[in-house]
């Protein structure tokens, strides 16, 4: 399914878990593109970057296109060097998630990631004129805006991608909130984020499940699920649909979305099949409807 993509793993999964995950994705998941790379925390990469060549080879043998994703927060020397290294990589497309990456990639084709602020067609047009070939749009954009941008993207000949599954990234920070929760700082975190492979839940003092912490990133508690909107997105010209890895059966999730994208099943059946996978969090699609992101609307609202 060429239009279905798998976003980068944003949590700190153990190296062996990562290897197993991608091996299964390579063999079984009907996705056309896999984004690979550490997007959240530069401290984590030494744990698994040595595995990348094997993971890439495995994914490519499985027929997937591999795109290298870069860091969202680039401040420290180590982060700047990581970004520079990705920008110099040959043989793979790259996805930029911080403006710093745009300084040096103007000479080569590149993708623009969902943690960049691409809110309008003027910005899209400008970046496309400088070599951007594909835009993964911010998760908070409503349908009407995505439609306008998809129209322009078609004229420019660039791809437009929307996250259709997984927690919504709501904020990033220079401070690590995982470390903070454990009374540590980013510099002496001891990789405590590894204990939460689907993020650390934050509840309100009245017991409401609210947010999810992943190091410097704050995510929604709910999983975005736009399986009911696939047909509308296809009609407006969205070219790619992104699944964000969560600690659930992602092969099964990809299977449902692939069946929906090809039209093999209708939205109701796709929704029922996702419900049957018993997710650890409720679904939401409010951002797509231009309303509170946390809310989940049925087909009538669409």
């Amino acid at each position, binding site marked *: 399914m060429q239009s279905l993509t798998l976003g980068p793993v944003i949590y700190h999964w153990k190296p062996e878990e990562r290897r197993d995950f991608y091996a299964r994705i390579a063999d079984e998941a009907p996705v056309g593109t896999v984004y690979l790379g550490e997007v959240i925390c530069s401290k984590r990469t030494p744990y698994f970057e040595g595995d990348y060549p094997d993971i890439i080879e495995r994914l490519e043998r499985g027929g997937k296109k591999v795109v290298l994703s870069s860091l969202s927060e680039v401040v420290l020397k180590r982060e700047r060097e990581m970004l520079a290294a990705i920008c110099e990589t040959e043989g793979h497309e790259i996805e930029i998630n911080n403006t710093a990456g745009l300084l040096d990639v103007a000479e080569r084709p590149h993708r623009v990631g969902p943690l960049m602020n691409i809110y309008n067609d003027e910005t899209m047009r400008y970046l496309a004129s400088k070599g951007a070939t594909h835009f993964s749009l911010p998760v908070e954009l409503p349908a009407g805006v995505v439609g306008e941008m998809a129209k322009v993207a078609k004229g420019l000949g660039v791809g437009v991608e929307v996250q259709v599954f997984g927690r919504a990234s709501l904020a990033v920070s220079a401070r690590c909130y995982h470390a903070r929760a454990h009374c540590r700082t980013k*510099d002496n975190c001891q990789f405590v984020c590894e204990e939460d492979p689907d993020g650390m839940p*934050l509840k309100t003092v009245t017991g409401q499940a609210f947010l999810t912490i992943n190091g410097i990133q704050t995510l929604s508690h709910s999983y975005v699920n736009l399986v009911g909107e696939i047909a509308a997105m296809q009609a407006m010209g969205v070219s790619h649909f992104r699944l964000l890895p969560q600690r659930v059966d992602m092969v099964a999730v990809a299977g449902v979305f692939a069946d929906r994208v090809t039209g093999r099943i209708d939205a109701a059946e796709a929704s029922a099949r996702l419900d049957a996978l018993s997710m650890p969090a409720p679904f939401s699609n409010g951002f797509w409807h231009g309303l509170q992101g946390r809310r989940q609307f049925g087909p009538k609202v669409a």
Partner: protein
Amino acid sequence: MKRPELVCPAGTPAALRTAVEAGADAVYCGFQNATNARNFPGLNFTPEEMQASVAHAHDHGTKVLLAVNTFPTAGRFNLWREAVDMGARFGVDAFIVADIGVADYVKRTYPDIRLHLSVQAAASSPEAIRYYAREFGVKRVVLPRILTVPEIKQLAREIPCEIETFIFGNHGLMVEGRCSLTNYVTGLSTNMDGVCSPAADVHYDKQADGSVTTRLADFTIDSFAPDEQAGYPTICKGRYNAPNRPDAYYAFEEPISLNLSGLLPALIEAGVDAFKIEGRQRSRAYVKSAVSAFRKAVDSILAGQEPELADLIALTEGQKQTEGAFKTKKWR
């Protein structure tokens, strides 16, 4: 010693006049709509007010920096274009922008007007800043509040434009321009609508025991004992529970204000060109006190004297202040 520009908030025409009188070198302000990141009811300027205020500021030798620093969504770009056009017509001294499309419009249409990069663009590395300088001729970057003074000093050597840093006011913890927390809860977006924790969604629920629970829309942000003063429910300043934190804790940051009055000489020495006081949403009394105090402090430093700093604690959030990331990396 380089003379740093004191850049002061003007949420209303009255606050602008107050800031000018208190010694601001420059004021920053925005129109009454989604084009600026402080789009609160009762704040900001009508076109007529803006025109008169620019004239007033210029008569007193004060510059006016127009904040057009939110992110226009496709289909609404004209509103941002109009804000820029009006600003140019009224003679503002610079535009403060965050969106690449808006920056490109300013550069193409008004190449002679200065462009400042808003903190909302979150340019936090030499590469990001050099990108905006190269592509759009940005003359000054407003730095995110995440760098230590030595890091700012190093950065100053690596970029071709001026540096503006916040010295007082709100101590936001999330990377500016990347925060959708308010939109997740209220349906209004910080980036697209210029709104953070809108008052219309704020609730103070008094409980039977006299305690107060604060809410933003449906979510509880904090709870206060009867003898505690209930703070405004901003998501990133609330108390929550995590699996290993059975007692509610400030998961992101406590209510606290940034106050760098003790670091001004070090910041000047590091190469900072402009000091920014946050608070377009604050009262005229706040503007008067904060601007006067920092005017006096900067002038003393430039005269080679020890700055006498007025006590600003009364103006801070929760009566607490910090030097935040500027002081130590441990903040991270």
